[in-house]
């Protein structure tokens, strides 16, 4: 405090004002080789799936009934199904649906979870108690069973899949956010902001949430991955995406019946 030099945190802010970026997110990110690798794989996957019209070797659902099912070859890299449809193209087109569902679920469930967790952690008291009991309830019954039950009731359309997965998926991030907010709440800068006259809403939005950006970003990434698996699992069990629409899960489900049968 008594050091004669200006403190390093205040220096850049006064030097060039608004143009100064916060210590580069991209620089920190790019130093993580595994994270970069993951991002590159995900980007390639997304480009291949959403650009399937240009990337895929065959048009969607193009049948070749005379060809029938063939093993992988130079023309059909992953072989074809019983209607002679190219599996690689089918996988790419199915990925559009699987990825879109997963991204929607990740964003919606994270948004709900962050909102509930932040409010519960910041308000404390009975709001917090009620919230904790609700997440306890969600822990008790296996999620996959609840999902199947809910989809049976709502009917398995892509929209209801997104709604049901989001409504069941928010509790994890809500718990994490709540825990972080409870400890942030006691920090000096929150008191300082309150003393200056910031409302509770401003404190939450401007001072608490930015401190959680790391946790939230990680959760969105994990939630996309988790949602892809859950959607595939549900479709595999027959409660998810229904034919003729294909997703990664129901493609696998249809193919699984062929295991142990001789080659044709």
């Amino acid at each position: 405090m008594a050091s004669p030099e200006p403190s390093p945190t205040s220096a850049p802010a006064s030097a060039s004002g608004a143009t100064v970026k916060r210590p580069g997110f991209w620089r920190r990110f790019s130093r993580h080789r595994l994270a970069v690798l993951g991002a590159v794989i995900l980007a390639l996957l997304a480009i291949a799936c959403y650009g399937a019209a240009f990337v895929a070797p065959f048009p969607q659902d193009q049948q070749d009934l005379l060809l029938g099912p063939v093993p992988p070859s130079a023309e059909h890299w992953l072989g074809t199904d019983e209607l002679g449809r190219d599996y690689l193209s089918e996988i790419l087109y199915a990925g559009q649906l699987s990825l879109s569902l997963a991204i929607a679920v990740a964003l919606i469930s994270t948004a709900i979870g962050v909102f509930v967790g932040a409010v519960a952690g910041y308000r404390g008291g009975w709001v917090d108690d009620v919230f904790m009991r609700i997440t306890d309830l969600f822990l008790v019954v296996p999620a996959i069973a609840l999902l199947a039950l809910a989809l049976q009731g709502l009917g398995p359309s892509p929209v209801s899949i997104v709604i049901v997965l989001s409504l069941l998926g928010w509790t994890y991030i809500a718990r994490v956010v709540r825990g972080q907010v409870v400890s942030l709440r006691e920090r000096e800068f929150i008191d300082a902001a309150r003393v200056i006259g910031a409302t509770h809403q401003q404190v939450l939005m401007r001072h608490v949430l930015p401190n959680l950006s790391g946790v939230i970003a990680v959760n969105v990434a994990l939630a996309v991955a988790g949602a892809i698996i859950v959607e595939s699992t549900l479709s595999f069990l027959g409660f998810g995406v229904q034919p003729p629409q294909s997703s990664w899960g129901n493609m696998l489900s249809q193919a699984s019946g062929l295991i142990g049968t001789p080659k044709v």
Partner: protein
Amino acid sequence: MLRFTVRRLLYSLPVLLVGSFLLFWAVRTVFDPLLKLRAIRDPEVIARETERLGLNDGIFTQYGRWLTGFLSGDWGVSSRTEGSVRPMIESALTVTLQLLVWGVVFATIAAVLIGVWSAVRQYSFSDYALTGLSYLGLALPAFWFGLVLIQFLAVWPQQAFGWDKPAFFFIGLSSPGQDPSFIDTARHMVLPVLTLTVGLVAVWSRFTRASMLDALSSDYVRTARAKGVPRSRVVWNHALRNAWGPLVTVVALDSALLIGGLLVTEQVFSIPGMGRLFLDSLLAGDVFVLLPWMVITGAAVIILNLLADIAYGLLDPRVRVA
């Protein structure tokens, strides 16, 4: 310790009560218990059954009646098989527990060995290799991995060696029309238990590694090493003893959730356990099985959670204050 246990027990009762009511309400809203009878199109039958089951009463009355029946051991009759529900759930539970116990035992042993190995050699080649493998294990969905195991360990060897039966079976838990023998059951259990174990080891070994690293960097480990306790004893006696706590909680909670959560493994290997029972009942709209099923699995989670807390208290006296 006793007070702690009793308090936790009393605290879980309302959770179970509210949870079972919400489930009752949800199932009652989503499904029509008389679905099967509606096909007959006989208004007299519908009216009689509605009267007999008291479906016109308020939801609380219906819940109360169901709960009294459930607690006194009368779990009703399945609308799918027309058999009594209780033996159905009991036999499914036995089958699932058989799988689960073997899976959990193998997975715990493997996870502790792998976790301790990686923690002791942190940032070595083997640590990175095991970390990579466990991420791979996390990314493999059970339905895919189970199918791959069937293809690689059962179908291909059988074709390659021209056996008349595969080395490991992948349908059910015993061969039909044969007296159950140990060898036969074991040949049925290998693949599903392996599927289950790989997924669990991936998660649990990460936990063991993290909590071992935590323990190994504590002061008492340095003290023990400084006064000359051999390294292996420090690792296995001092550090592992303290690293057990979090692992026990995770193992208990995950196992509890798997009682009803083995849907996929049981579906892939056609095993008549709790998961299959749930799916079959759900597809048939059999509310009479769904409700007790959910209450049993929910109660299992709460009880195992409680046991985990007690075990944690026994392993680590510092947390007994609560």
